[in-house]
């Protein structure tokens, strides 16, 4: 379970995030929807423990991130917005590196690697160096390193950006399977179809504030629109009334 309560963050005079509160429950996929510069990345970085909030608390499974970041991160898997590859390592070595940072070793490490490589259908690329990998292959490596330690909570930052249909479907399948197993999934996106198809709850963020939250259906009703995209535009365009 991921929870942020009354988060605020200023960079000098600029307010990036203002009193944001939301919760991502276990067994649900929660989407953060917001235009560029809405404060999504800042919010996630506070959740990872990279930035310190001016006010409020972020917790991962009830552990305060600001107080014990290393402990809190242990049950967190992160799928970042850029697929950073160490090009001189093979896919397996790179996943192994992240698994080891989560304390896996020996037989458990080997089993975890084999499991995640099988699940993501990447045994054909596992022992190749990641140099020259396609975007889809990079996505698989990145997802594998986020999932190798079977984290209770998974955060994805714009995961489908730049992916083809096949890769997107694979990712979607994985997320739904994790949800069924009771994992907590939080993901930020711009892509409405993605959010509408996957998310149980959507949190709409604009100008550093939460302007609406609820199921995709509820948001459409709230804005009086048929499609989520129209609802989104209506909500962030006229925050009067909706935010209340």
């Amino acid at each position, binding site marked *: 379970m991921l929870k942020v309560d009354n988060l605020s963050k200023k960079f000098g005079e600029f307010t990036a995030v203002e009193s944001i509160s939301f919760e991502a429950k276990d067994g649900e996929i929660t989407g953060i929807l917001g235009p560029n510069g809405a404060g999504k990345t800042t919010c996630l970085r506070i959740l990872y*423990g990279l930035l310190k909030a001016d006010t409020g608390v972020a917790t991962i499974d009830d552990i305060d991130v600001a107080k014990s*970041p*290393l402990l809190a991160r242990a049950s967190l898997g992160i799928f970042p917005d850029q697929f950073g590859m160490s090009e001189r390592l093979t896919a397996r070595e790179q996943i192994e*590196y992240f698994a080891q940072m989560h304390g896996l070793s020996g037989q458990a490490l080997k089993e975890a690697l084999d499991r995640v490589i099988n699940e993501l259908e990447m045994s054909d690329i596992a022992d190749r160096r990641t140099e020259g990998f396609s975007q889809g292959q990079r996505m698989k490596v990145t997802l594998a390193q986020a999932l190798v330690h079977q984290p209770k909570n998974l955060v994805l930052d714009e995961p489908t950006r730049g992916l083809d249909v096949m890769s997107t479907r694979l990712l979607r399948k994985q997320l739904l399977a994790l949800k069924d197993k009771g994992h907590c999934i939080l993901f930020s996106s711009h892509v409405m179809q993605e959010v509408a198809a996957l998310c149980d709850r959507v949190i709409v963020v604009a100008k550093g504030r939460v302007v609406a939250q609820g199921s995709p259906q509820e948001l459409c009703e709230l804005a009086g629109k048929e499609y989520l995209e129209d609802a989104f535009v209506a909500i962030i365009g006229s925050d009067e009334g909706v935010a209340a």
Partner: protein
Amino acid sequence: MSVMKGLVVKEFREAFRDRRAIMAALFAIVTGPIIMAAVFMFQIEQELDVKDSYVEFVGAQYAPELITFLQANHVQSRQDMPENETEKWSKQEISLSIPHDYIERMQQGKPVILTLKADYSEKNLRTPLRRLESLIQGYSAQIGSTRLIMRGIDPRITTPITMDVQSTATPASKSGLIMGMVGMFIIMGLFTASMTAAIDTSAGERERHSLELILCQPVSTLKIVLSKVLCVSFYGAVAALLTMLAMTLTMSLLPLEKVGISIVVDPMTMVIITVMLLPLAFFAGIFQLFFAYRAKSFKEAQSYLSMILLLPMLVPMAIMFVPHKPEWLNYLPLAGQNILMGDLYKGESLDWMAFSMSGFSTIAISILMTLFLAKSLRSEKVVLALS
């Protein structure tokens, strides 16, 4: 512990598959000994054989005995110049004019004036001119003494004071300046070899968008920094040791004793130098990582570190020119090791105080920088510079 092992293994895998870093290290190892060998070879050749110099004798027929004397002492007439020397001497003209009344004036005991004409600012003529002058002076003194003896006077009367010069320079100490260079080359090798590896694992990792995700893992930044320092330092240490071995081998092959330089490198000396280089490798590693992490890209880091690369050159150079070195200079990182290495190569006994103090100061500064770098990787400034 297994976390640390995982981190270190990853660093070594990356660093030792990095062709660019390995090439840089090899380059660093090879250049030092080659430059050194070239310098020595040139010097030995210069010092060993007295080369013939060629002088235009004007009026040689007036003083055949003087000419014979000069020719016996490697001063030849230009007419006898062999073909292969023509080019070298065509721009370096020396002419010695002998007046037509040479014999006459000699016989009358009157002074004779010889005229030596040459470009005195020409560096290459300095040695032949000095030799020619002293030859003629010697010749003149010899004639003078003979004249006094013939008149029944002890010729020593003209030299009331004679200087007895006793040089305390030993073949070993003569090599001081050059041995300082050996130390400098080894330290340079250490820095250049670890430079590319240091940049790749810091600024390079940032450029590949891997750094942020690594900082989000449940691992302390101290462990991350330590794994990187360990790998980069290992690179530098191996390169420095290989440079040292290559240097020692090169110098043992050169006929240095012929120029009066002796180098004593026994296995014990090499062990001591190795022990001295290890803290220095740590220092070079953390120092370069520290600044490379300040850069956003590989290129930016390269321009920072190439400035840092001047340190191991400038520090020893500065030391060479400090006339009376204060004691504490021996205790500083880089300076201390350089002085000690020079002393050891000269065959002097090890200054244990300087050895332990410089090692201690090097390690202390390196540990401080490691802690500071680990702390700075937790700061918001670094995180915000990521995107």
